[in-house]
């Protein structure tokens, strides 16, 4: 009996020693199959893009509550830098599943790294979106981006300041830039306020001006720099200098100073994209003191209209693990959800480029902040008039050159040689 028990004990020990290893080997490798449960999104502007993402995240959680959406806010420059670093290195680690890219830059990314982006042609219907957004968001007939906000521009203005300077709402409609400068001078004289705030490093205002005339830094092929022969650009430069010389410009160096200038009442007008609406509205004390007029046009250019575009961006899915989930997320929110767009418009002020959304009630609503003006209906109207241009691939490369040349121009350099020098620099750089 004793012997038996000893033998049993020994065998139990040996067996238990052998079996302990096998349990641990099953744990790894379980996640490979099936949909990824976590996606990461990069975007900028908490008041606008991030807020819209939060809303989409909420909508999507009803569809698929298991998926965790990580929204990460970076400055736009950071996103560009991180994307370039990541894509250049050829590793996908550290890249997000979804990224917001400004339309001006989209083509350079798509054509440089076509494999890095996930094609969405089958997941969304491009014809559902405003046509002018499809150029920047697609490449070789393949749709890569989900068009998001409209960059339709308007002239936001402080009714109180302009009234002090003797201008009515009617006087603000369909201005040209010469008239605008005159108003600026009057405002400065009457109120001491500047008419506009500008960042010397950001020529957004120039871009809006030339697009109003259907012109761009690049020729229609999207590749050839079109500077020295660009009449609209030349006129825009001159208007820019004229504004500066009239001393009606406030200078800021970054976004927060820009917003501060608006919110603190430092300036009287903001001629920019409609995405500024939520930032303007965030200063509740100024409710009723703002209105939006159409964007000024170039006085010396027959093609110029009182409508333009500034910024505007779209969502892209990157070819990293989780692309399927990310596509599904976009397709069921920004890609198709009319209801959500209505809500985005109402709550945040997002003027979308999703056609079906522009017909809803929200578009015809009166905004009390803007004294009951139906601003979204106005933007929808102006959107239709935006001249279509090909942004091409080198918008910002050329703008960097132009920013320096602009300083030279402001310092007294002749306009023609400014543009000529810029042209030759651009030609060597962007080729």
């Amino acid at each position, binding site marked *: 009996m004793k*012997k038996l028990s*000893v*033998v049993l*004990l*020994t065998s139990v*020990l*040996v067996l*238990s*020693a052998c079996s*302990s290893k096998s349990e641990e080997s099953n744990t790894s490798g379980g996640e490979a199959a099936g949909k990824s449960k976590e996606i990461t999104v990069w975007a900028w502007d*908490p008041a606008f893009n*991030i807020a819209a993402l939060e809303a989409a995240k909420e909508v999507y959680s009803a569809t698929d509550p298991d998926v965790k959406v990580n929204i990460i*806010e*970076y*400055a736009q*420059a*950071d996103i560009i830098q991180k994307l370039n670093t990541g894509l250049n290195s050829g590793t996908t680690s550290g890249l997000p599943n979804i990224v917001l890219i400004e339309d001006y830059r989209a083509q350079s990314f798509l054509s440089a790294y076509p494999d890095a982006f996930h094609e969405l042609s089958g997941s969304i219907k491009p014809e559902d979106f405003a046509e002018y957004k499809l150029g920047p968001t697609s490449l070789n007939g393949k749709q890569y981006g989900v068009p998001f906000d409209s960059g339709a521009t308007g002239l936001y203005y402080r009714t109180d300041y302009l009234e002090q300077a003797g201008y009515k709402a009617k006087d603000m409609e369909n201005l040209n830039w010469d008239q605008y400068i005159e108003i600026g001078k009057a405002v400065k004289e009457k109120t001491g306020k*500047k008419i506009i705030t*500008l*960042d*010397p*490093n950001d020529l957004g205002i120039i871009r809006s001006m030339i697009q109003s005339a259907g012109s761009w830094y690049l020729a229609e092929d999207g590749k050839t720099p079109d500077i020295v022969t660009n009449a609209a650009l030349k006129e825009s430069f001159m208007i820019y200098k004229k*504004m*500066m*010389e*009239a*001393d*009606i*410009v*406030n*200078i*800021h*160096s*970054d*976004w*927060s*100073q820009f917003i*501060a200038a608006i919110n603190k009442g430092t300036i009287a007008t903001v001629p920019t994209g409609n995405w500024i609406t939520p930032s303007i509205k965030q200063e509740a004390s100024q409710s009723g003191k703002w209105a939006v007029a159409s964007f000024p046009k170039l006085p010396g250019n027959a093609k110029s209209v009182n409508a333009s575009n500034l910024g505007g961006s779209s969502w892209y899915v990157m070819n990293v693990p989780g692309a399927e989930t990310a596509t599904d997320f976009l397709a069921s929110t920004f890609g198709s959800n009319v209801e959500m767009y209505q809500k985005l418009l109402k709550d945040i002020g997002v003027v979308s480029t999703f056609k079906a959304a522009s017909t809803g009630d929200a578009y015809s609503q009166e905004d009390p902040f803007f004294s009951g003006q139906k601003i979204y209906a106005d933007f929808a109207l102006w959107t239709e008039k935006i001249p279509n241009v090909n942004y091409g691939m080198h918008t910002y490369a050329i703008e960097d050159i132009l*920013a320096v040349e602009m*300083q030279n121009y*402001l*310092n007294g350099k002749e306009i023609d040689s400014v543009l000529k020098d810029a042209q030759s620099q651009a030609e060597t750089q962007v080729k």
Partner: protein
Amino acid sequence: MNVMRTLFDKFKNLKLFTKMFMVMVVSIIAVSVAISWTVIHMSTDLFMQTFSITNTKVLNQIKSGFESYNDAIVTVVSNANQSGAMKSFLTQGDADSLSTAKSYFNMSEQMKKLKSNLDAYEVGITIAGVNGRVYSTDRSYLSMDDKKLKQHPLTLNSHKDPKRLIYQDYKEITGTNGLGEPMIVASKALLDRSTGYVYGTIYISMKERDFGQVFDSYTSLGNDVFILNKNGMIVSSNRQDRIGYMSQELLDYAEQMDTEASDYLNVSVQGKDSFVISDNLPTYDFYIVNTIDKEIALGQMIDTKTLTLIGIVIVGIALSIVFLITRQISKSLTKLVLQMSNVTHNEFGNHITVTGSYEIRELGQAFNYMVDELHDYVDKLVETQKGQRNAELAALQRQINLHFLYNTLASVKTLVQQGSKEKATETIHSLISVLQNTISNVSETIMVEQELGILKHYVFINHARYGDRIKVGYFVAPECMDYHVPKLIIQPFIENAFFHGFNVKSSGYIHVLVSTDGQALYCEVVDSGDGIEGLPSEDAFLNTKKSRQMFSGIGIKNVHDRIRLLYGEEYGVSIVSELGNGTRVKITLPLIKL
């Protein structure tokens, strides 16, 4: 104590196998536990040494990482201080749009250059001037309001000591979720060297998670790095959960190590047994503290579970082998012991079977050899004793013969004096016959018939001496005549009867009876004499002293012993006697026929 004793007694009484096996179990377990403990202890020591060496190096590396960051910052700050464009941007009063735009543009160009010094780091540079202008390369760092920044401790502390670059921790409150992103901000007042006029402040902010990258790769679970400021607040750590909290404990350790210059401390951190290494970052005015949770770190290095399992398996295998071997040894020993205890049953004739291991076989052979030797020795001893007894007997017989001779010769002298010449001759003739038989070897046997002849001669001599008032009768079964008996085995009893049996009675008879029942020869000497007192039963053994008194000459016991010595236990002499009714002596002998 008593329990111990009881246990020990119990143990002592256990079987050999159980004892050996218990000792083995205890020893093997003790040895394996001791070895495991020693190994773990040694590797712990080794780890401690390695740890203190490598982690000191790691710490130095981290330190140099921080120092190169500091160097870059120092460069940026001094460049900023030397830049005239920046100075004018920061000091310029209100100007027209054009010059403001130029100033801003120049500033941005300067900042780009400045930033390029820190391209290796994820930082945001913010510069604030006395004129209220703020320029920031990235507003996501230090996103607070410009006015708020002016009143912030970050600014105030810099202005307090305008010549020094100081590092401070700062928690950014971002608008969206209200969660603070901890930052490390290097700040310095920008001042005009010649006049000491402070015209601005430069802030270089780094998110804690980027700051922590300097040491993040060196950390692991249980191996934590903390950066403390001089107040004991944790400004950076791989342990996100502890950033922003005060740790007096760590500060004390850091200060202690700073003053004592010891390599490492072996202390408790947050209640956990840990190693602590610390160094200070003089340029930052921070302490860098590296803690290692011993339990986790050693747990990663020493897999106690596996070690224990291996130990158990080895002990288990060893025990089963020991069990088998011990059982085999003890089995052959037990067999040996069993055989040994049986050896005495057969007069040392049993040899044991020699099997089992070498030792057991040797033991068995030695034992067999010993048994053989013993056997020989006993045989020799028996032989010696026999010889001794015979010698003794012969001596006694010779003694008798002399006595008898004396008596007989006295009788013959009397007969000669009486003139009965013929009777004297006959008596001498009988004496000669008796002597003839007596002189020869004592151990020799003779036939009953011969013995009877001797007896008759002897009786004749006695009759001649004392007269025939004591009659002697012979009743011998004819088939007994041919059996052999030891010479003169009956004669002493006749002699006794003659000389001691008839002291009171003057006449009587002596009968000699020889018979057999097929198994033994019975020679009886029955007299009708006085009888002997104190011999109540047939079984009673003869008392030597008494017999001496009653029987002259040869002791009855000697005869008895002699017979037993010659033929075995079942033979011998017995006496029955009753006072006044005579004595019966019965000699039992084996049937011997030559």
